[in-house]
């Protein structure tokens, strides 16, 4: 008990702090037993480093499917480390938090530029939950229940969608992918659209990693369905945007925009939509206004959609979001710029193609089972009876997840297919090493 605490107790006219808990019945009192007593910072840091070293780093990373080992400019972490951003709360007092509010307004604007969508909210938790919220928003717009999904959707996304469907009871129907191109089977999708359709979910690149070339055709037959477009933000450095291709709601995970892999979290849920649906949208939104003297000012706005005002009638229960990570993505986009993002995206295409070239020479390995164009993730068929993932790991390579493990429906039943993912960081030497190792261990 220090002097300050003594002073508090005297002011409260009590002799021990425990007296402040006299309202808690004794039979409810507990004490922690299994948690050890505290340690010094010196001990903590050495223990943390000791545990950290149990993780194996230094393997060559060909994992992807949503999280990517991308290049992060040093400036991103420098800004994120500023405690004025890091240790702030939600900007409930706008006059005292203009810096954060302006940064979030700029984030919304940057993602609108990237996607060519009208509006973007100030973030969702991650890609899968952004998708779940998009489905709920589509239901609020047209009241329909039928949700069309690609049959090769990530199992994890499907599970999150099922859970986000609670209360609206969506009916999921799966459309096919073309077995030759690996792209959406547009005719099959078209045939499944009925008058009571809620939304169509498309991925581009799709869950095989392939770029869709016919998404714009969906507009000619989608009717009242809401087109929900799941994109890769880095690919938009060069590809047509969701906005240009007719998306009503565009969502993604922003991890690739300057955020470490973090074992999958925290990342950043990107959420954009058409202007006319703004009042049906979930999440916090920052707006520009003026102060009493006519000076530009930024505030949280349209809060009457949100849980703290509207309670059980809110568009979503989301409160805490990923504000800090949205600043990370803003700094990233500002640093790399339009030309930088274009070249980073092209580098991915180029490396995926180069990897195909390296693998085509290996017998029993076919990187061309799909004719489509790959971006970062790549589906490869390999004749093998070995556990490739384990064998590669013995050789310092991470990758080779089976499509069966990750996707709702795998490409074809009679072949084994595996994922290898590239990013701008992969070197030709690393691609050669993967090819050489596969030849030996398959």
């Amino acid at each position: 008990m220090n002097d300050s605490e003594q002073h508090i107790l005297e002011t409260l006219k009590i002799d021990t702090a425990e007296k402040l808990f006299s309202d808690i019945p004794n039979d409810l009192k507990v004490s922690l037993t299994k948690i050890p007593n505290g340690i010094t910072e010196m001990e903590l840091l050495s223990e943390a480093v000791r545990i950290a070293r149990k993780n194996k780093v230094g393997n060559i990373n060909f994992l992807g499917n949503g999280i990517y080992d991308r290049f992060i400019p040093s400036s991103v972490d420098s800004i994120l480390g500023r405690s004025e951003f890091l240790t702030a709360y939600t900007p409930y007092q706008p006059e005292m938090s203009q810096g954060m509010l302006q940064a979030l307004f700029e984030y919304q604007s940057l993602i609108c530029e990237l996607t060519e969508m009208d509006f973007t909210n100030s973030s969702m938790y991650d890609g899968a939950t952004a998708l779940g919220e998009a489905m709920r928003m589509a239901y609020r717009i047209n009241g329909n229940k039928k949700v069309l999904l690609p049959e090769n959707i990530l199992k994890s996304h499907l599970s999150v969608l099922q859970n986000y469907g609670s209360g609206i009871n969506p009916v999921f129907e799966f459309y096919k992918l073309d077995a030759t191109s690996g792209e959406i089977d547009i005719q099959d999708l078209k045939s499944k659209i009925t008058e009571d359709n809620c939304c169509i979910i498309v991925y581009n690149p799709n869950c095989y990693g392939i770029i869709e070339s016919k998404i714009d055709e969906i507009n000619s037959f989608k009717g009242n369905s809401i087109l929900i477009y799941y994109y890769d933000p880095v690919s938009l450095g060069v590809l047509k945007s969701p906005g240009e291709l007719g998306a009503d709601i565009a969502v993604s995970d922003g991890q690739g925009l300057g955020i470490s892999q973090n074992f999958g979290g925290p990342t950043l849920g990107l959420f954009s939509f058409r202007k006319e649906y703004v009042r049906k949208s979930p999440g916090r939104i920052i707006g520009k206004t003026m102060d009493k003297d006519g000076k530009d000012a930024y505030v949280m706005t349209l809060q009457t959609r949100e849980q703290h005002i509207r309670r059980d009638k809110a568009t979503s229960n989301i409160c805490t979001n990923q504000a800090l990570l949205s600043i990370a993505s803003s700094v990233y986009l500002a640093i790399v710029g339009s030309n930088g993002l274009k070249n980073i995206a092209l580098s991915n295409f180029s490396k995926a193609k180069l990897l195909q070239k390296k693998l085509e020479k290996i017998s029993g390995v076919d990187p061309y089972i799909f004719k489509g164009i790959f971006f970062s993730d790549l589906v490869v068929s390999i004749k093998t009876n070995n556990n490739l993932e384990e064998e590669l790991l013995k050789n310092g390579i991470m990758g080779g997840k089976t499509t069966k493990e990750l996707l709702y429906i795998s490409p074809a039943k009679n072949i084994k297919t595996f994922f290898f993912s590239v990013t701008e960081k992969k070197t030709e030497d690393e691609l050669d090493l993967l090819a050489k190792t596969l030849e030996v261990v398959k």
Partner: protein
Amino acid sequence: MTYHQANYDEKLLNEYRSGNDFKFQNFDEKSLPENLLRKNLRLPSIAEYDVIRHYTRLSQMNYCVDLGIYPLGSCTMKFNPKFADKIASLTEFNSIHPNQNEKTIQGTLQIMYELQENLKEISGMERVSLQPLAGAQGEYTALLIIRKYLENSGMHDRDEIIIPDSAHGTNPASATMAGFSVIEIPSDSNGGIDIDALKAAIGPKTAAFMITNPNTLGVFEPKIKEIASLIHSSGALLYYDGANFNAIVGVTNPGKMGFDLVHFNLHKTFATPHGGGGPGAGPIAVSKKLMDFIPSPFVDRKGETYFFNYNVSNSIGKISSFNGSFINLLRAWAYMRYHGKDGMYRNTLRAVMNANYISAKLKGEYESVSGDLKKHEVVVSSENRGKRALDIAKYLINNGVHSPTIYFPLIVHEALMIEPTEDVSVDDLDRYCQLMIYALHSENSYLESLPNALPITRANEVKAAKDMILRW
């Protein structure tokens, strides 16, 4: 002290003209079919030095907990320890891909396992899921578990969630989102549960009762065991909103009180930085009968080897892309390891001492709401002096301290909800209370002219909603 926040009249990113200077190898876009290519991309063209200066200036126009007291009620803005920043920045932790082979992530899994064990102990529950990404998502996850449990027990028709009118807004929002209907019950004059109203609300359709204890007035609900037995004997479940956990760590726990499910806000109780609105982390813990319903997988241990256990027979499935907000989990682990059971208990005592100290200092000035004994937060009203809570808040921020949560809980007029946490000195508490009292004695016209020491005067929120300028 004369306070002025930095004010740069900082322009927007896209108004800079310094030119992009990012270096990267050039690739030819002709390698791709023309019909796939976008026509233009209009990101700002700004030099790296200007990006840094821009964001540094913006950062200086922002209050944060490293600058001082940030006593938002129910938000638990305690000091964010710097050792956690250091640990979170270790490459061995932040460069890990979520699909890596378990052999390569034994350190990560150990942290998660130990955190699960700690949260079990702190909550008195049987199993923990670290997957939910924020408190509201923890609530939603728990409600999905409640639904699945009831369905599996043949109680499909239980579709009502009872919630007190003093509850956090996320409670009713999560409940309707999960497909339940919300039955709101009034609080008694002390902000506690009105037992008669609760009895009247309980029926054959009741699925669960969602409450926080201590409640949003900072008062411990003494009849909690009676409430638990009322709920359980009706066949329903009892849910603990963990937003107010900072009042009870090491003193009592939801398991002991009879709760079936709990969510934690690691960014509140366990000091992970809130980043201007997020990220958070909202793990949940459940009692024995709900163990097999949590999101899959959880982390388990066999000897010295840690692994993901997918054997959750009635699992609701996944609630987020991967395995939770790992970096926040890691920071919370570091907080717990550093403070330990002795330190966490001391923190609870000090947080409650500080709240009661504020209550005592404001007594006779502000109208006190509920009894004298507070837990982690105190709610007062400025209505007795004809002052608006909003005006008091602007006075405070104009003096370089953050305001309390205002206009919440909804059941108190002109409410100011103050949660100092354990990390404030007596000198700072004294100064804060003094400012609050000065504000109360100021002329309304003066208060309405504030703030004037910040980059902007009062922002016109009505105009923002009307104009809907949501981007440049």
